[in-house]
């Protein structure tokens, strides 16, 4: 498929557009797509047929692949054929829309098509890519997925892992959803690293809308926002599981940070296992609803899923080395770093307490044996020094950067 002359290039472009046009047809799945290509030789040819007399009928006669003639089934029904003919009629409009959105359609036949997806059982025929196409085929892509209702801790873990993976030269792949996904993307973008977001909708129906700006930032930092759904597709219940197989398919390994019992992230994990990719699971407390799915996953697939026992350990398992890392173990505790900083007695007592786990102001007041005003002021000082973080009336100690000593 080397580009030789103008004519070839033109033909190739036309073919790519034809694929994109076919991809807009609702109801035309991988099976139908493959059948069309098999029968007519190319997508452009298939679209041309619809224009000729009796073309629609011919289209509808397309048979799917099958062993014995008698059990061959029709891959394309009469109704679907009409829709395809209709799309062919609107072909130029569709192509214009795709251009206007700044999308690059990647077809199965493109050389730039991510090679990891080629090994899927039924890879998407067309990928609509916004941003860097190269970002889809990086050396070590890692999918980070999880619930849309994470805990504060889960959000932090997601951001930590994404940050570490990015620093180590990996590319974070996720689903741009609210929650774990968003935290992972945002953390990668903060590192200035490329990250890949896979949508469960068409690009012009970006879901969730709240992440439109995050999507822009992903594109701006050299990442890509990608969807197998053509513009115009709304996000529906059914589009997300499909999207999930692309997420796991684009990555070498999938990390599930937090997942409730019925979280979509579990589907991504299933896909990863089915696709023969690695699957890592961050374990959670026994009774945490946001970790119930993770624990179930670990129990259901012993030997196949791997546990995340620390960010550094995960990087090691992934074969990644973080920049500037000396020895990858948990960083020094906030308390240890605080000792080096010559803190006041109240600050020190607060750190001692927080070292044992997150606490509310009430608990801190009790354990520091100081007035509320003093405790609140001390918390600000600790926060300014990066030793403590807090949200929602709860505070926790911040572990030091991995591999760096205070």
């Amino acid at each position, binding site marked *: 498929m080397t580009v030789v002359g103008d004519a070839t290039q033109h033909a190739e472009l036309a073919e790519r557009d034809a694929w994109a046009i076919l991809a807009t047809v609702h109801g035309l799945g991988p099976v139908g797509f493959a059948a069309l290509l098999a029968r007519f030789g190319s997508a452009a040819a298939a679209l041309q047929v619809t224009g000729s007399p009796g073309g629609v009928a011919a289209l509808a006669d397309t048979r799917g692949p099958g062993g014995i003639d008698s059990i061959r089934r029709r891959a394309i029904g009469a109704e679907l054929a009409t829709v395809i003919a209709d799309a062919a009629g609107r072909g130029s409009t569709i192509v214009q829309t795709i251009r206007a959105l700044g999308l690059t359609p990647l077809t199965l036949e493109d050389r730039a098509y991510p090679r990891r997806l080629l090994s899927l059982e039924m890879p998407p025929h067309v990928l609509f890519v916004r941003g860097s196409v190269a970002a889809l085929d990086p050396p070590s892509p890692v999918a980070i997925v999880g619930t849309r209702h994470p805990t504060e801790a889960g959000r932090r873990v997601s951001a930590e892992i994404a940050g570490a993976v990015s620093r180590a030269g990996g590319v974070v792949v996720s689903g741009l959803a609210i929650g774990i996904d968003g935290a992972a993307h945002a953390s990668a973008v903060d590192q200035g690293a490329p990250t890949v977001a896979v949508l469960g909708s068409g690009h012009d129906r970006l879901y969730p*809308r*709240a992440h439109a700006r995050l999507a822009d930032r992903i594109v701006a930092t050299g990442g890509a926002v990608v969807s197998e759904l053509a513009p115009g597709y709304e996000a529906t219940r059914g589009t997300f599981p499909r999207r999930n197989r692309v997420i796991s398919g684009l990555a070498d390994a999938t990390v599930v940070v937090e997942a409730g019992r019925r979280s979509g992230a579990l589907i991504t994990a299933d896909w990863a296992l089915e696709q023969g990719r690695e699957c890592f699971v961050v374990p959670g407390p026994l009774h945490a609803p946001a970790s119930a799915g993770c624990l179930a996953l670990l129990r259901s697939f012993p030997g196949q899923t791997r546990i995340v026992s620390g960010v550094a350990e995960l990087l090691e398992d992934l074969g990644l080395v973080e920049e500037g890392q000396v020895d990858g173990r948990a960083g020094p505790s906030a308390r240890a770093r605080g000792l080096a900083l010559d803190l006041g007695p109240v600050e020190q007592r607060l750190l001692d307490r927080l070292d044992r786990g997150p606490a509310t102001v009430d608990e801190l007041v009790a354990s520091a044996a100081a007035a509320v005003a003093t405790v609140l002021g001390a918390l*600000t000082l600790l926060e300014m020094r990066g030793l403590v973080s807090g949200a*929602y*009336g709860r505070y926790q100690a911040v572990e030091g950067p991995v591999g760096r000593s205070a």
Partner: protein
Amino acid sequence: MLATVHSASLYGLEGRVIRVEVDVAPGLPGFSIVGLADAALQEARERCRGAIRNSGFDFPPRRITVNLAPADLPKSGSGLDLGIALAILLGSEQVRAAGRWALVGELSLGGEVRRVPGLLPMVAALGRRGIRRVIVPAEGLEEARLVTDVEAIPAASIAEAIEAMRAPRSRPRRTIDPPARVELASPPMVGSADPGPRVPGHADPRREVPGREDPGRSDPGREHAAQDGPAVAPSGAAALTDGLAWPDLADVRGQAEARRALEIALAGGHGLLMIGPPGSGKTLLARTIPGLLPPLGDDEALEATIVDSVASDLAVAGLVRRRPFRAPHHTISYAGMVGGGPRLSPGEATRADHGVLFLDELPEFDRDVLEALRQPLEEGRVAISRAGRATVFPARFQLVAAMNPCPCGQAGVEGRVCRCRTGVAARYAARVSGPLRDRIDLWVMLPPVPPASLVQDDEPEDSATVAGRIVAARCLALERNRGRLNGRLSGRTLLAVAQLSTDARARLVALAELEELSGRGTERLLRVARTIADLDASGSVDEHHLAEAARFRSPARRLADRLAV
């Protein structure tokens, strides 16, 4: 024959003197009222007819014309009834009177005189016009007597009014109780929290609310009753539902941060927003506010009494000394909040003048209603313009608000799962608009209260102790800021009173950079720090004051991160 008496009508919060002229002329029997009278006034004809007949007089079968002067001023309400009836009796020569009289009151068909809203400003207006004797409804006597220089004569019926008019310069016929004694509490602790009228028969006046409890507030105990981890001691819950008493701070368990935020807010007149899951004690904390506020000053008390006189359904029993605490339900209408309506009545914003306006479930309020609060929050007043009539109501209230983090109330709370659909929580938080956020100096998040803290032995501080600190800090601020609380300071004035030390200045810059604060955000931080320093009785704002103030900064950025990422 022509007869003239004076009466008064209400226009916004002001009384207007009305001359009631009645001409009883020969001709076909008829009764008409001219002079821009509203519907309630037109119906005065029927009330006067019945009241005169049932008081043992004849309703003259003549052509009766009532003119209400000045003729171009729209008049409303039923307070002119008594004046009209007496003028008719004078005009038909059934009674005689000496001197110049003013009468205010509504009539029943049986001839009884009833109280009307706004008696106090109406009597005051008559007094300013040089009228020295005013006949008022007996139940409104104490209110009318708050106006010095005017002799208020009570009348429970037309007959009593006539009797009073026949005998000029006489003392009132009925023996009456002296007006409720208005006491300034003995300083500085318990009583200072509430030196309202002492009501006999109640051992603890601190817990007594005069019958002004907001009727619009429905079922305030709902939130607490439905939750599993309430911060409510049983007595507090009971106090909430009976609508008569407010909880003491000693009833609130845990929530040290929010308690401190409330103390700072009340000491500095800062806007406060409490965010927390249901049952974390937001509403309970807010309900303790009346017990924490210092009493009104003399001028403030008079203004508050006038508002009360106009807006309250009940007679005012003396000068209002308690700072208003208004907690309208979130279904309140636009006019209900800022005032207006056909009779230009004051709204909750005005009823909370000099006090606290508490908006529970802030995002549930209509957007229009919340936006309407911007003018009073910035200017301390509400200007209302209607076709042909305009007025200005005072509205110098302090805003205290509470909200759940999301409709289900669990978003972002450790160990709980938010059941809201994606994006709902962010939209919920966004319902509180930017301009309103800007007026809120203190933000505090309330975590759920663990059951353990409900049964702890150590008694939390009670309201009286905290109220003492609040009063002291307010005094410092008012003296230094020339009568303004810190919450109303900005710009150069704020910087001047802050008295930042060099270290504190550096800390302020560091904090502002850390949080990427805007100019406004930095100012909010400084305002709050000023109040914390006042609570500390410190002349200058030091580093640790700023450090504490930073805990209450707007979490707008963090909130957005949490909800949208």
